[in-house]
């Protein structure tokens, strides 16, 4: 009963009824499809077009077609590569920590007693549902030298004192940015992993237990291999999401101390400096990065998104 079955049947066999069904299908699904293309494919095409011009909004008369010059400007500038570096750093650390932490959270929820389970589910959904900007402010104020409690609570740790200015240098700023990102988005990854855990057959676990496998052995030999698809999908989504990080950086540092990420660079070129041409070039490059990451994931890790999406 799938679209491919109908197609395999050959065109001659398609009845009027099937044809009417096809038409109805597109009438119903078409509007959503068209809207999706209009709000993404069109803007990115427009961005590509505009990226070929030297164009600043404050000086519209000087607009000039310069082929790929904007890309040359961006790609030969240290600012772009530094932003890419920071973005990759944040993405790699965030996703790595979230994978472990998210898995631990999922295990706790999976094994939690039935009385505790709804409470855990509710608690874990709060960071997921809270506005990213709100979370960024909460973390910012907690570490801020003017209003934070972190310095006074953790002054016993080496390197932290009443006067530690977390947003005064690169390493500590990035640390707080990453911490807030991890807090906010780990619940999402853990819910996906929890759904994956539920698909691991319980009798396999029991069999391994009977054969004398330790907890770690069962985790590595039974649980993880059986939920590989769920893990990969969760990682892919979080990687792409982390790579687009913007809100936390905007609220906490505005890119100060070299914490500028790629999204923030695009924002600064377009909105603050009104350099439409350069901003568009950065946007297109960011888009290409995201495409590249997706391809890498799908080719390297063989993530089958279609099956993960329930479409077989």
């Amino acid at each position, binding site marked *: *009963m799938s*679209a491919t079955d109908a*197609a395999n049947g050959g065109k001659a066999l398609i009845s009027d009824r099937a044809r009417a*069904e096809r038409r*109805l*299908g597109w009438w119903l*699904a078409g509007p*959503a*499809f068209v*809207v*999706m*293309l209009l*709000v993404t494919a069109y*803007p990115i095409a427009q961005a590509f077009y*505009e990226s070929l011009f030297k164009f600043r*909004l404050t000086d519209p008369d000087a607009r000039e077609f310069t082929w790929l010059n904007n890309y040359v400007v961006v790609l030969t500038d240290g600012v772009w590569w530094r932003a890419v570096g920071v973005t990759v750093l944040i993405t790699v650390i965030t996703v790595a920590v979230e994978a472990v932490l998210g898995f631990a959270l999922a295990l*706790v929820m999976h*094994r*939690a*007693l039935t009385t*505790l389970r709804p*409470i855990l589910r*509710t*608690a*874990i*959904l*709060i*960071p*997921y*549902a*809270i*506005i*990213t900007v709100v979370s960024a*402010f*909460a973390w910012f*104020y907690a570490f801020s030298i003017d*209003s934070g*409690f972190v*310095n006074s*609570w953790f002054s016993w740790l080496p390197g932290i004192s009443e006067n530690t200015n977390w947003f005064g240098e690169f390493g500590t700023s990035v640390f707080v940015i990453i911490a807030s990102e991890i807090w906010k988005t780990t619940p999402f990854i853990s*819910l*996906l992993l*929890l*759904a*994956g855990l539920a698909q691991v057959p319980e009798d396999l676990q029991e069999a391994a237990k009977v054969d004398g496998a330790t907890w770690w052995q069962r985790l590595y030999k039974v649980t993880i291999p059986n939920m590989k698809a769920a893990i990969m*999908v*969760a990682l892919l*989504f979080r990687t792409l999401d982390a790579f687009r990080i913007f*809100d936390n950086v905007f*609220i906490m540092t505005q890119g100060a101390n070299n914490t500028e990420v790629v999204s923030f660079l*695009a924002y600064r070129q*377009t*909105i603050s400096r009104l350099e439409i041409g350069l901003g568009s070039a*950065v*946007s297109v490059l960011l*888009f290409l990065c*995201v495409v590249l990451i997706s391809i890498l994931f799908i080719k390297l890790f063989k993530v089958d*998104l279609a099956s993960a*999406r*329930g479409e077989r």
Partner: protein
Amino acid sequence: MDEQQLSRGTKAWWWVAGVVVIVYALFPVAWIVSLSFKTPSDLANLQFLPTNWVWDNYDNILAGDAQDLFLSALRNSIGISLIATFISVVLATFCAYAIARLDFPGKRLILTTALAVAIFPVISIVTPLFNLWRNIGLYDTWPGLIIPYLSLTLPISIWTLSAFFRQIPWELEQAAQVDGATTWQAFRKVIVPLATPGVFTTAIISFFIAWNDFVYGISLTSTEAARPVPAALAFFTGASQFEEPTGAIAAAAVVVTIPVVILVLLFQRRIVSGLTQGAVKG
């Protein structure tokens, strides 16, 4: 899992782990709530809790100086998020119905497109829209945000609803018709009650996403005409120029978190199933 089998020791460990998870999830929220009840002089006490709990910051944003800025932003956020959610849920309902029930070529194309749109970097859409919206007069208007919000809410609505609709036992509709119900009755009495929870859950998730937006909000608005709360928070200023807006921001942050918390408390089970069904399906 059979809970009787667990020894008392193991049980205690799972309780501890559960409590750790709850503290992890709620601690930053508790902090921003506590911050919102501090007096301006108290903000610098460098303690977690205020010395005196006061409502001053809420007064300031709901009835005081910051009122204009906050209440208009709140109105914009509610209006724009609800309209964007409504449009995307309606479009997605038709689309998901077709995907779940009808045979037509291109199903895979639609789902793949939804996936591609979902991973699209938002900022890449902002740059061209910023210029276009200025030229055609959509800059700093409600529609100017509602339209790009669809790029956030529509793809996830399509997935989530397709996953929900695929599980509906559609044969029940025919069964009702065999039993003498008209097509309309069968649809209204059988299919609508089965489909409503999925549509409703999708609406909640889609609302969360629209409510959370910051990139579009800060890039495509310039005044109180359309600026939503997350963007407005970044523009808060203190009561006087010597005062930090910390208290006002904390209070505003708490106010916009309340609806989210209520939705989560009421519908946690549904939200979890919606999030995971859309994403992981073996």
